[in-house]
C-alpha cells in the first residue's frame, strides 16, 4: 500500500503550478499530521478507559499511542519545516498551528518521560492517563488554529480531483501502517508488563526459598 502511495505521489499527482515539486511534501506531511492527532485521540481514550476500569490493558494502548504519536508529531514538524523552507523561505515561524503542533509534540514527550520515571504500573498508568486527558485540550487547538488565528499556514487549500485522490490514498496507507505499529507496540508493552510481573514474583519466591532454607530447610512448592 505504501509503495502504491509513493508511486501515486511521484507519477499520478500533478505538479502544482506555483510551488512545483515541493508541494508533493503535502502527501506525506498531512498523513503524518493526521496520525499525530489520531494517536492523541487513542491515548486520551485509552487513558479515560483506564481511569474508569483500572485495567492495565488500556494503559498498554495509551503507551503505544504515546510513542507513535510522538514520532508522528515530530515527523510532522520536520516535513512541515522542509516544506516551509521551500514555500515560505523559512523553516520555522511562530505561526499558531506550528506552535500548537510543537506544544503537542512536547506534551507527547512529557508523557513518555513521566512514564519512564515512574516504576509502579498503576501509578504510571494513572499519571499517563491524566496527562493524556489534559493534553487532549491541545488537539482542537491544532486543528482549528488556522481558522481561529491569523497565520501563514494555509487553512484548507482547493485541490484538483487527482491531488485529493492521491492524498486520500496516502492517508489510508499511513493509517494502516499506524494500526500495524500500534498493535505491535501494544502487544510488546503487554509482554513486557507480564515478564516484569513474573520477575518480581520470582524474586519474591526466591527470597522466601532462601529464608526457608536458612531457617528450617523449607521449600516453597508453589509456583
Amino acid at each position: 500500500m505504501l509503495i502504491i502511495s509513493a508511486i501515486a505521489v511521484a507519477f499520478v499527482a500533478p505538479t502544482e503550478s506555483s510551488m512545483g515539486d515541493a508541494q508533493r511534501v503535502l502527501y506525506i506531511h498531512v498523513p503524518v499530521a493526521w496520525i499525530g492527532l489520531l494517536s492523541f485521540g487513542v491515548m486520551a481514550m485509552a487513558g479515560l478507559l483506564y481511569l474508569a476500569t483500572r485495567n492495565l490493558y488500556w494503559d498498554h494502548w495509551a503507551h503505544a499511542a504515546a510513542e507513535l504519536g510522538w514520532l508522528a508529531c515530530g515527523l510532522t514538524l520536520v516535513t512541515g519545516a522542509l516544506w516551509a523552507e521551500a514555500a515560505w523561505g523559512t523553516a520555522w515561524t511562530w505561526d499558531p498551528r506550528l506552535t500548537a503542533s510543537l506544544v503537542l509534540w512536547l506534551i507527547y514527550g512529557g508523557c513518555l518521560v513521566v512514564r519512564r520515571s515512574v516504576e509502579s504500573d498503576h501509578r504510571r498508568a494513572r499519571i499517563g492517563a491524566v496527562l493524556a486527558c489534559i493534553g487532549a485540550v491541545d488537539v482542537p487547538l491544532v486543528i482549528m488554529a488556522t481558522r481561529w488565528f491569523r497565520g501563514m499556514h494555509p487553512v484548507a487549500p482547493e485541490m484538483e480531483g487527482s491531488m485529493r485522490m492521491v492524498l486520500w490514498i496516502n492517508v489510508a496507507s499511513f493509517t494502516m501502517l499506524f494500526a500495524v505499529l500500534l498493535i505491535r507496540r501494544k502487544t510488546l508493552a503487554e509482554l513486557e508488563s507480564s515478564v516484569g510481573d513474573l520477575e518480581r514474583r520470582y524474586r519474591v519466591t526466591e527470597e522466601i526459598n532462601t529464608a526457608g532454607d536458612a531457617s528450617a530447610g523449607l521449600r516453597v512448592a508453589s509456583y
Partner: protein
Amino acid sequence: METFAIAYGVVGVAVTVYLARLGVMQRRVAQRIELLEAAAGKSQGDGSVDRYMDETRVSA
C-alpha cells in the same frame, strides 16, 4: 523534487529506526523470558517449575 525526496527519506528512516527499536525490545523481552526459565529451572526441581512455566506461558 529534492524537498519531496528528503521528506520521504526522513519519514522512511524514522519508521525503519522505530521498527528496528521494536525488534531490539522484542529480543530483550525474549532474553528476559529465557533468564526466567533458566532461573526457575535451577532453583526448584520438584515439579513446581513446570507449574511456574505454565503460568509464565499463559501470562506472557
